[in-house]
Structure formats: C-alpha cells, structure tokens
C-alpha cells in the first residue's frame, strides 16, 4: 500500500514537473515570438533604438547604453527608485525594532 502510494506520488511529481516545464517553455516561446515580431510591427521602437544607439554616448557620456538610459534619459525614474529603497529601509527598521523598546508608552 505504501509502495503504491509512493509510486503514485512520484508519478504525480513527474506529471507536475513536466507540466511546469511545458508552461515555462511555452511562455518563453511566446515571448521570444513577440520579441522578434516587435521591431517589424512597431517602427517607432526601431527608430528609438536606433536613436539611442547613435546618440546616447554623445549626449550622456556613458558608453554603457543601459546606464545612459537609467542615469541619463530616465534619471528622474532612478531618483524615484532610490526613494522607494529608502522607504523600504525605513519600514524594515521600524518593523524589526518594534519589539525592542521603541514602544515605551502603554
């Protein structure tokens, strides 16, 4: 009885794993397809990419194009991200030290 149970659970695990693998592979194929189809169906994306590749180093002074976007063209967004990090740190400090004498009043 226990052997059959273990056998059944193994088959369940195999089925679940293969289903998960199939889902991941299907999602990957779909995203890859969308990624390949995007520049052809969206000419604006292609021109933006071409503009950044051509002009980013001259305009922002960064050879790494990712850095030229997140600290050059989108630096304000990065400022927001650092504020989010500050809020997260403040929340963790408040919550983690809640039981260690911060709350003195009854």
């Amino acid at each position, binding site marked *: 009885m226990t052997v059959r149970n273990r056998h059944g659970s193994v088959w369940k695990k195999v089925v679940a794993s293969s289903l998960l693998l199939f889902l991941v592979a299907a999602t990957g194929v779909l995203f890859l397809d969308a990624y390949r189809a995007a520049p052809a169906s969206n000419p604006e994306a292609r021109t933006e990419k071409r503009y950044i590749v051509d002009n980013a180093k001259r305009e922002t002074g*960064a050879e790494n194009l990712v*850095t030229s976007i997140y600290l*050059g063209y989108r630096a304000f967004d990065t400022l927001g991200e650092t*504020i989010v990090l*500050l809020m997260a740190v403040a929340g963790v400090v408040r919550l983690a*030290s809640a039981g260690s004498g911060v709350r003195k009043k009854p």
Partner: protein
Amino acid sequence: MRKTDILDVMSRKLAPFVMLFGFYLVANGHLSPGGGFQGGVVIASAVILLLLAQEAGSVTTSFPLTALSVAESAALFVFISVGIVGLLAAGAFLSVFLPLGSGTTVLDSGFIFVLNLVIGVKVGAGITLICFHILEAH
C-alpha cells in the same frame, strides 16, 4: 550557531575582495555591465558575509548603524542636489551640467559617475541596514 575559526578567517580574507569588486562595479557602471544598484548590493553582501560569519559586535563597530543611516539619507540628499544643480545650470532637473568627455575612462563621463557612486553608497548602506535589522545584530 557556533562560529568556527575557519569561518572567521575565510570571511575576513574574502570580504575585502568582495567589497573591492563591488566598488569596481560601481565605478565602471558607465563602461561595463554593472552600476550603482548592482555594485551596492555586492558591497552590502560583503558586510553581510562578515555579519554572518563573525560575532555581531565586531561588525557593528566597523559599520555602525548611525553611520549607515546617515549614508543612506545623505546619498539621497546628494542625488537631489545634483538634480537641482542641473536645474539651475542647464535648465532642467537632473540635466547634464558637467562637461562630457570621451566616456571611455572612469572619471571622464560627466555626472553619471557621480550618480553611480551616490546610488552605490545608498544601496549598499540600505541593504546592509535591512540585513542588520532582520538578523538583529544591533
């Protein structure tokens, strides 16, 4: 958990190199993959390695909580100050006001280098603070 001599020695040997690699990632953020966020997390991981492998008191004397908090807050202040200087000097918030060089060496890249350093300090101090408080090292 008991801290053995092997943990103690290996963490002391390894942490400076991890931290050096973090500063390398921050300083070369505009030239190679990496940048302030990634380099800051690597710097914080060096401190966390020391924290996990050694007694808590020795790490918090090297990296006191008040200094980390001040670094976290001052980095945001410097970031906003850079933005306001850009607003005054070049007409828009966070616009480029330092002269742009060739962009092929570390120091020759306008204010992106400054912003990367600031973000590296801020993320390193922030992640270290979070881990100090979660692991209750104080």
